[in-house]
């Protein structure tokens, strides 16, 4: 890189859809960033979004926020980049985001070059890779077989800086990337321009949640300045500051190991990083080290269909039953087992969770709670929605009236709804915690250009 060159990345928020300070975004644009980058997703809301390829956030809210960032892009005249688009970064989610972007471009009368980087993986090529020995489990990883791969509805590979750089190199105005590591979005351009690699990855990790690494997390907007030795983080909101504590503490966040971060093509080590305040709101960091590893590996995420669920809820206010709730649960289970066998629905599993006793922590709960009322949530799971509902209907009379002993007067508990059972739809499960070796970084990714 040229001497004294600084690469500036403006990060508006931790993710598209999370509120941010509008004045701070405006202040950030005045700093003349080289790129506006924002994350669009995460696995943190669960496997449903990858399983279905649908977005967690509403379309209208996403569109409103994206329109503001398209405005910011037009003002700054630099590329706008989103990664892990549509929550999961699955191909369908990238298409959803592209559709929304084209709609906005039409409404705004903008002619744009849009690059999409897709991370979706073909099941057969993953099975081939598995059989070739190119897929390695991380710890802990569920066991995988070709059948499990075939059962997935979506598999994505997490893009790193190389794939994002390929997208940036197209000269697109807007880049919509599928699943990407949160950090690669921010690290790609500084690394392409020759900035310090350890600093680029470390700064990217610090900024991946927007202003979470500052004194005002909700303000969202941070400016990241990268050079040949380190990086500087500056929050753009008037009342926000980065301090050595807020910045270094961010390495703890959602990170199993606070010193080492594994990424496509290598890992970051921040043990020797030095954090220094350079003014009342900025922190400079140097000393982080990037290590290349070979072969080049990308992480995989996959979700598979795991059944259809129906949920019933009943409320127990009778103190005798509250005090003997475990015996009542056993009686419900026994009754269900008999009815399931008699009615030929033994393939439906039943789980009963006692809300007010241990529904949050399950077997790890050790408090003896004495709530004045308890909720019993009955969860029915099977391969067919109609069968799960049928099982729920079979248990409903028991949820309403089952006595603890045959000789006591028939009790009646409280159903909050009619009907008491609700079809919850499909359940998905994460089934991959694996890495895959590829020859060239673009081997598992697809780059396309669309003109609006």
């Amino acid at each position: 890189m040229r001497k004294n060159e600084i690469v500036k990345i403006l990060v508006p928020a931790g993710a598209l859809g999370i509120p941010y300070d509008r004045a701070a975004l405006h202040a950030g644009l005045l700093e003349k960033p080289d790129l506006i980058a924002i994350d669009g997703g995460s696995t943190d809301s669960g496997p449903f979004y990858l399983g279905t390829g649908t977005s967690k956030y509403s379309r209208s809210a996403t569109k409103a926020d994206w329109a503001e960032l398209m405005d910011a892009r037009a003002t700054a005249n630099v590329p706008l980049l989103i990664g892990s688009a549509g929550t999961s970064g699955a191909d369908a989610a990238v298409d959803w985001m592209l559709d929304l972007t084209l709609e906005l471009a039409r409404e705004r009368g903008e002619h744009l070059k849009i690059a999409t980087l897709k991370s979706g993986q073909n099941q057969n090529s993953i099975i081939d890779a598995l059989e070739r020995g190119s897929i390695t489990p991380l710890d802990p990883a569920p066991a995988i077989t070709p059948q499990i791969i075939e059962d997935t509805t979506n598999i994505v590979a997490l893009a790193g800086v190389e794939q994002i750089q390929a997208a940036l190199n197209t000269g697109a105005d807007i880049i919509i990337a599928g699943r990407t590591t949160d950090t690669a979005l921010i690290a790609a351009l500084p690394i392409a321009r020759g900035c310090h690699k350890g600093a680029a990855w470390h700064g990217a990790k610090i900024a991946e949640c927007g202003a979470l690494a500052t004194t005002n997390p909700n303000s969202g907007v941070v400016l990241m300045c990268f050079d040949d030795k380190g990086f500087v983080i500056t929050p753009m909101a008037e009342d926000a500051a980065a301090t050595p504590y807020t910045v270094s503490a961010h390495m703890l966040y959602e990170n199993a190991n606070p010193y080492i971060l594994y990424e496509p093509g290598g890992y970051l080590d921040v043990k020797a990083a030095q954090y220094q305040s350079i003014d009342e709101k900025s922190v400079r960091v140097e000393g982080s080290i990037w290590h290349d590893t070979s072969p080049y590996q990308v992480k995989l995420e996959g979700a598979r269909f795991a059944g259809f669920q129906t949920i019933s809820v009943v409320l127990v206010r009778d103190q005798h039953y509250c005090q003997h709730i475990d015996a009542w649960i056993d009686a419900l289970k026994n009754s269900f087992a008999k009815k399931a066998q008699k009615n030929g629905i033994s393939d439906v599993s039943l789980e009963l969770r006692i809300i007010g006793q241990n529904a949050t922590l399950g077997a790890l709960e050790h408090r003896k709670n004495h709530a004045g009322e308890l909720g019993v949530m009955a969860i029915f799971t099977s391969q067919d929605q109609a069968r799960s509902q049928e099982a729920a209907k079979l248990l409903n009379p028991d949820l309403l009236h089952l006595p603890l002993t045959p000789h006591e007067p028939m009790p009646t508990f409280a159903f909050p709804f009619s009907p008491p059972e609700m079809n919850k739809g499909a359940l998905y499960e994460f089934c991959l915690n694996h890495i895959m070796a590829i020859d060239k970084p673009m081997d598992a990714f697809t780059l396309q250009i669309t003109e609006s």
Partner: protein
Amino acid sequence: MALGEKVKKIRSKNAGPFWLTIDIFCFDELNFQHIQKHLDTASVARLFHIEPSQILRFDIAPLQVIKFSLPRPQIQGTVNDTDMHGASFAALLEELELE
């Protein structure tokens, strides 16, 4: 006295779908040293019904933080998972009585 009453904050979060990470933020250096001495990994392992060897522990003096990372009690979002974001597991440590 329970751990939660002795420290500034205890935070539990997913670290991806397969790991849980728990950060214990102490008030100051003295508090950190005290907690560090009295909080043993085995007692945390007992809370989660696992072996101490399954837990990663980081005592981070500059931040006055003790961090534990462990495989999630249930993989996130599976049929038996009770807490999608893993935030409630912090309560187990908050209520832990220190020796």
